[in-house]
């Protein structure tokens, strides 16, 4: 007969006030979000955590699992369990509101800062009355946009980034990745303002190319490469005298 511990899962949750351990059944195909939900339903109705879609689309369930930021709805317990236990904590680099819920405001504010450049709202070049612009999907600029466009705003990269931990003024991987997609979008009229913001204080120059964001990104984006693109363009446009 198998030892009982093989059928149990210890879930250590870093709640407001300190870590609390719960024991729940270890189930087939159980995700970390399933485990947290089971703890909340059976033992801790006041446990605060966020989720919405449960299928890796909305980006709201990111938590730190065994010290590594992950999307919990698509992370199987079997992949991360160590000695029958997992440890779940709120994301790093964001203020905690309660238990596993972070205040995402700074993350989204930096995203909109980067997206809107120097204060302008997203500004298209055409109106709905103009003909659709022809964008060649094979052009290098569009390929650069396509490579970075599928961000789900989960803030996993933001939590993984050491530079964000050191310098709260740093825009972070997600926002700069978004800036790179706008800088390459032929339909964006405010690309210069976006670039100016991305090259300013707390912009691409602060990135150390550690690649922690790339390693952590659940949808396989490469923000480090996008930021390298911003750095390269910043430098070459400056040397050519064509940048602002």
């Amino acid at each position, binding site marked *: 007969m198998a030892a009982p511990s093989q059928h149990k899962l210890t879930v250590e949750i870093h709640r407001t006030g300190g870590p609390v351990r719960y024991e729940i059944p270890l189930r087939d195909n159980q995700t970390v979000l399933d485990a947290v939900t089971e703890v909340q339903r059976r033992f801790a109705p006041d446990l605060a955590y966020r989720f919405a879609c449960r299928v890796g689309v909305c980006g709201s369930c990111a938590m730190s699992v065994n010290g590594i930021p992950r999307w919990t709805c698509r992370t199987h317990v079997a992949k991360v369990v160590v000695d029958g236990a997992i440890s779940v904590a709120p994301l790093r680099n964001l203020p905690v509101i309660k238990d596993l819920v972070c205040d995402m405001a700074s993350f989204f504010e930096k995203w909109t800062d980067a997206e809107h450049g120097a204060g302008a709202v997203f500004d298209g070049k055409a109106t709905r009355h103009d003909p659709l612009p022809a964008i060649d999907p094979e052009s290098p600029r569009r390929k650069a946009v396509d490579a970075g466009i599928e961000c789900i705003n989960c803030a996993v990269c933001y939590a993984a980034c050491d*530079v964000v931990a*050191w*310098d709260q*003024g740093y825009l972070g991987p997600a926002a700069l990745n978004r800036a790179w997609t706008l800088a390459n979008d032929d339909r964006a009229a405010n690309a210069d303002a976006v670039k100016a913001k991305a*090259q*300013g*204080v707390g*912009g*691409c*120059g*602060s990135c150390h190319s550690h690649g922690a964001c790339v390693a952590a990104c659940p949808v396989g984006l490469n923000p480090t490469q996008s930021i390298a693109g911003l*750095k390269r363009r*910043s*430098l070459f446009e*400056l*040397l050519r005298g064509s*940048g602002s």
Partner: protein
Amino acid sequence: MSERLLFAVQRVTALILAPLVLIHLGLILWAVEGGLTAAEILSRTQGALGWAMFYGVFVLAASAHGAIGLRNILVEWAALGRPLAGRISMAMAAVLLVLGLRGVWAVIA
């Protein structure tokens, strides 16, 4: 100086310094016979305008490169604000510049 210009200056000076540092290390190996002293080095380089020009460029690039790097370290690891980190780094650049140019002067004087 804008953040963007600081970034550019640090990368360009890194580009300049990469070969210069190798030559600098080579010179130390070649010039030193009885211990690493200023007198020892100067006895082999004094009066050489080429070395003075080489080290003139070296000192300018190293002062800028080191000071900008120090500014980043102060902002990220010492949690200083950018204005204070900038002032400390400017002082560092001035010290490096004075010490370095004094050495260059000794070669040509």
